[in-house]
């Protein structure tokens, strides 16, 4: 008789995820125009923990590079990657659709319009706020339209409302761009995503949203498994499907909007990371969501490392890197497991 092993987050995968984050962290901080020895970097990172004081052999300038320049950027990459992947996995579960990504309900178009307005009206410092507000408004409008459009609040009406809202906002954005051709370059660079940091400013902006979204989504991860049998059966198992779905979508959209506000539109992460995790570690959201968080964080931090070192001193748009390296890797995983599902 074999013992029954229900789908849960396996310690081995959890350790692998944490390991990936640590590798990305040390590599991201160590590599750059000035290469620092990884051992020294690890020691300096540990020194940030109160009560730890290890000799790292680095001088003050090098320590400043770590704490003021590289670490904020790597941490921002980790947070943005974690948010986009977690939100993507959440969206795929809520909509029971493998093609769902965190931009499905208009977050991207709303943030894009907000950012374009901020740039076009020369209000650069307000760009994150404008992008965040645009994303938030777009999702709320999509949700209201979706609920009004379908009495059963089916996910199909919600997706269609997202398509309509996105197209409408994209039209306004294109018009604005046409009227302000001189800003195209700047808007375009924002659209492709970038992890530019100014000290710890962006990290502190994003962190509260990351905490809220992570807590809510991870707390409800078992409900996502129940939702996979459809609303009617989920209700017969004692769940409030609409309520669960609304809470999950609100949390995931909030995290996505905050991430987009500081990083621009980084594509691909939210759709590919949860799928790779699903293929490798099994189809239960109880492992997909926490592992997407960890591997998404590591993936984006490493993608950013590639973006800023490959053509140094120039910098590649991070969206180009995520797609260029992510897509072949995804195909590889897909071929070796031959199973894609939600």
């Amino acid at each position, binding site marked *: 008789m074999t013992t*029954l092993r229900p789908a*849960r987050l396996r310690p081995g995968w959890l350790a692998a995820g944490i390991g990936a984050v640590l590798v990305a962290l040390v590599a991201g901080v160590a590599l750059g125009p000035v290469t620092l020895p990884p051992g020294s970097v690890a020691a300096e990172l540990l020194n940030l923990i109160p009560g730890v004081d290890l000799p790292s052999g680095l001088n003050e300038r090098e320590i400043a590079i770590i704490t003021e320049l590289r670490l904020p950027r790597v941490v921002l990459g980790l947070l943005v990657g974690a948010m986009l992947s977690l939100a993507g996995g959440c969206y795929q579960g809520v909509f029971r659709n493998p093609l769902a990504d965190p931009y499905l309900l208009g977050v991207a178009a709303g943030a894009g319009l907000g950012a374009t307005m901020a740039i076009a009206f020369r209000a650069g410092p307000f760009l994150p706020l404008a992008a965040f507000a645009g994303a938030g408004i777009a999702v709320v409008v999509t949700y209201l339209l979706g609920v009004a459009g379908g009495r059963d609040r089916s996910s199909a009406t919600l997706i269609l409302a997202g398509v309509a809202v996105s197209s409408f906002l994209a039209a306004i954005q294109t018009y604005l761009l046409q009227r302000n051709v001189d800003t195209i370059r700047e808007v375009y660079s924002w659209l492709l995503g970038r992890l530019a940091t100014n000290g710890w400013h962006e990290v502190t902006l994003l962190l509260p949203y990351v905490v809220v979204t992570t807590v809510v989504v991870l707390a409800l991860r078992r409900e996502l498994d129940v939702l996979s*049998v459809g609303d009617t059966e989920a*209700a*017969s*198992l*004692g769940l409030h499907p609409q309520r669960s779905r609304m809470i999950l979508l609100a949390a995931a959209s909030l995290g996505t909007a905050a991430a987009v506000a500081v990083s621009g539109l980084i594509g691909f992460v939210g759709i590919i990371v949860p799928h790779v995790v699903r293929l490798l570690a099994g189809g239960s959201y109880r492992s997909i969501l926490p592992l997407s968080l960890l591997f998404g964080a590591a993936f984006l931090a490493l993608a950013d490392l590639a973006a800023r070192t490959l053509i140094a001193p120039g910098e590649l748009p991070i969206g180009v890197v995520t797609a260029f390296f992510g897509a072949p890797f995804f195909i590889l995983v897909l071929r070796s497991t031959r199973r894609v599902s*939600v």
Partner: protein
Amino acid sequence: MLAVEGVRVTLGDAEILHGVDLTVASGEWVTVIGPNGAGKSTLLRAVGGAVPSHGKIIIDGTPTSALPRRRRAQLVATVAQQPVVPPGMRVLDYVLLGRTPYIAPLGRESAQDLSIVEQVLDSLELRRFTGRELETLSGGERQRVFLARALAQGAPLLLLDEPTSALDIGHQQEVLELVDRLRKERALTVLATMHDLSVAGEYADRLVLLAEGRIAADGPPAQVLTEELLARHYRARVRVIAGEFGPIVVPVRLS
């Protein structure tokens, strides 16, 4: 166990059930029959709480309107006509979903939940499939897994919507014998819908004939499966022959 009083259900603009009264005693097996569109599935969904209804539905003495969802799910378990098969989900995890009404919103399944599921899996001879993905199972095996999830719910009232419609004749008998055995072992009350009239009569204590949203006949199989009633409500010409476990209904060509 179950009392349905004056239940009306409206879907879209159409009223599907026009005031249905029905009682099912504890431990009884009642099967609802009736032509396509009579409202059989709708009646089951109303009892299961999957569609809103007017009128009274009383389970174990409590009106369902006064039951929180989780409590209701502990009392009524449903096997839908075509249950959703979540891609990639293993049999064990699927059956464990049946324990949802007992798991705290932020909690996870306890050792007791696991042992209940284990017992259900053994009882339905599903142990060897636990690690398999539900999608990869045959129709008959799947039907047993659907049943297992409902049994894991530990509810005294089991609703079966066309439990055999996807199965060949041998697997139909296998599943229905299984339901009957489990009903006796676990003192379950069964409310089912079925298309095959002879089979329905052989397994049910009582048949309810539903036609155009109203109850046209209610009684032991021999009283409901009559040539005259079936001709009137199904527009079918049939011959009814006395069988060992109930009337056998044989269609006869019209001309």
